[in-house]
């Protein structure tokens, strides 16, 4: 072998080593980039929590835990309390759940058991499209279409129907405004309906066909099979779906802001105007002057975040359990 040949072979080996190490560097770099991106996502959530706590400190310092129980809301004297907003958030979400859970389960039952096959996909898509409509559309529709209808045709009926029944007469009292806690709850119900329907449909599908066949085999009707086999089997998943929808309802802003009426008080009547945490923030944040006012609104945001965080964590846990079951 001549010296030149040996030399070229050496350089070739060196070239290859260099190329390989370049690839290795690029490889590490890519790994690092994706890892950094994952960490950035973590930091963002940490940042959300830290900034909310930091922003709400002045209000918490000024009002202490009394912030949670006070009904005051007076920008002039800088006296703020979160109770009416928390109350409105909870009550509107409860109304939404009362309507959306049975209807959503009904839709899921319809889609898995009753619907003629060719219609299944189009109907599920149509229901899911309901979830795609931006919340501001629900708001404008609720304000201009639903609220006047409710005011003219539903609320007067409710008021006169319940006026002699003790508890219900306070729940449905007062002049029919159209807008108010009840209307906001109805809008929220429509918005979360697709979540409940499609998640329930998915968890219903995890029921082993053998179980359903066994139920039909011993002569169960469809409704008996749903009640005694499918629902007990999927209970955890359905609750998970409901909690997920509840999380949505608690944090929903625009649709509620349009129809809730924005009154900072706790009224016993469901027909009265009220407010929610997100509606208060949306309405007042840009007009808030002074540190305490701004900080009180950020404090409301913190409360909302904590409530939805807890609800969503429960939802995730439940849905995780049913996933493990079906795997």
């Amino acid at each position, binding site marked *: 072998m001549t010296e030149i040949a040996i030399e070229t072979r050496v350089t070739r080996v060196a070239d290859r080593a260099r190329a390989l190490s370049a690839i290795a560097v690029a490889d590490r770099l890519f790994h690092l980039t994706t890892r950094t991106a994952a960490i950035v996502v973590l930091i963002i959530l940490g940042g*959300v929590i830290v900034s909310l706590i930091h922003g709400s400190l002045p209000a918490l310092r000024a009002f202490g835990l009394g912030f949670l129980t006070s009904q005051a809301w007076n920008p002039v004297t800088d006296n703020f309390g979160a109770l009416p907003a928390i109350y409105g958030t909870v009550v509107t979400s409860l109304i939404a759940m009362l309507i959306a859970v049975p209807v959503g389960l009904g839709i899921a039952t319809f889609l898995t058991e009753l619907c003629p096959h060719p219609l299944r996909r189009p109907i599920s898509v149509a229901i899911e*499209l309901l979830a795609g409509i931006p919340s501001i559309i629900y708001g404008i529709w609720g304000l201009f279409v639903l609220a006047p209808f409710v005011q003219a045709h539903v609320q007067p009926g409710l008021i006169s129907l319940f006026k002699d029944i003790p508890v219900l007469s306070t729940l449905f009292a007062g002049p029919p405004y159209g807008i108010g806690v009840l209307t906001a709850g109805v809008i929220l119900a429509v918005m979360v309906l697709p979540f409940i329907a499609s998640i329930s449909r998915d968890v219903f599908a995890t029921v082993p066909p053998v179980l359903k066949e066994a139920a039909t085999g011993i002569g169960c*009707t469809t409704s008996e099979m749903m009640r005694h086999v499918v629902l007990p089997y999927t209970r955890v998943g359905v609750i998970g779906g409901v909690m997920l929808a509840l999380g949505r309802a608690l944090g929903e802003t625009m649709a509620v*802001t349009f129809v809730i009426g924005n009154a900072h008080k706790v009224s016993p009547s469901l027909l009265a105007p009220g407010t929610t945490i997100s509606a208060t923030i949306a309405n007042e944040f840009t007009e808030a002057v002074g540190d305490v006012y701004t900080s009180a609104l950020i404090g409301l945001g913190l409360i909302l975040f904590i409530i939805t965080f807890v609800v969503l964590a429960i939802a995730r846990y439940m849905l995780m359990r049913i996933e493990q079951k079906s795997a």
Partner: protein
Amino acid sequence: MSLYAKRRRRNAMATSLAWAAALFGLSWLFLILGALLYEGLRGLSPAVFTQMTPPPGSRGGLMNAIGGSLSMTAIGVAIGAPLGMLAGTYMAEYGRKTKLATVVRFVNDILLSAPSIVIGLFVYTIIVAPMGHFSGIAGAVALSLIVIPVVLRTTEDMLLLVPGSLREAAAALGAPRAVIISRVSYRAAKAGIVTGVLLAVARVSGETAPLLFTALNNQFWSSDLNAPMASLPVVIFQFALSPYKDWQQLAWTGALLITAAVLTLSIIARALSAGRRKS
């Protein structure tokens, strides 16, 4: 026999209630779309696209709002989508069951359903307050924070669907990890990832709450990202709650435009993912 009849009656009642529930759910979709078409089409004219949002009582359009919405959505997606894709790649290709991936997955799920108004508050405190003024870029950042979790989730899910044997085949040929991911995994999961981005665009283009106190609003055309910027949802919010008839009309027309855009996007996304499932 009477027990049998009773059970049959109960079953008939339950199933007809389920039918009614489905009809009830569907009827809302048609009621809302019907109202949008009825009210929105009346105001639809070329002026909507060529004139600025007017002061009350005079004629105008939504040009600045449409422009603002388009540019903030574009920037938000340009920031959020790559970040979400990279993080999703880490979770599906490198992390899988590591602690970091598990924590990020949980955190991402929380971000995915966190109230969007809280995102707005966050961006206000980290960008608007220090800078001292509302701006288009703050709005875009807020939107990107909504894009990230959607894209991350779909990217991870779609990459996990790519069969491991494809990766093994590429690895056996001596391809390094980065090449396997970019040439094999990404290519196999392309339709799914695009679907995720489209869904994120659809979600973001209707968002109002995070823009209320980040981008605020602007009566005029603005291409300055450092200044307040108009957007369709915020204009709809303001105009719909105003007492002026022509402002309310513009709000309906804007609502029709947004809904048409959002529903078109999500139908395209659906068609894409359905096509992938079949093949």
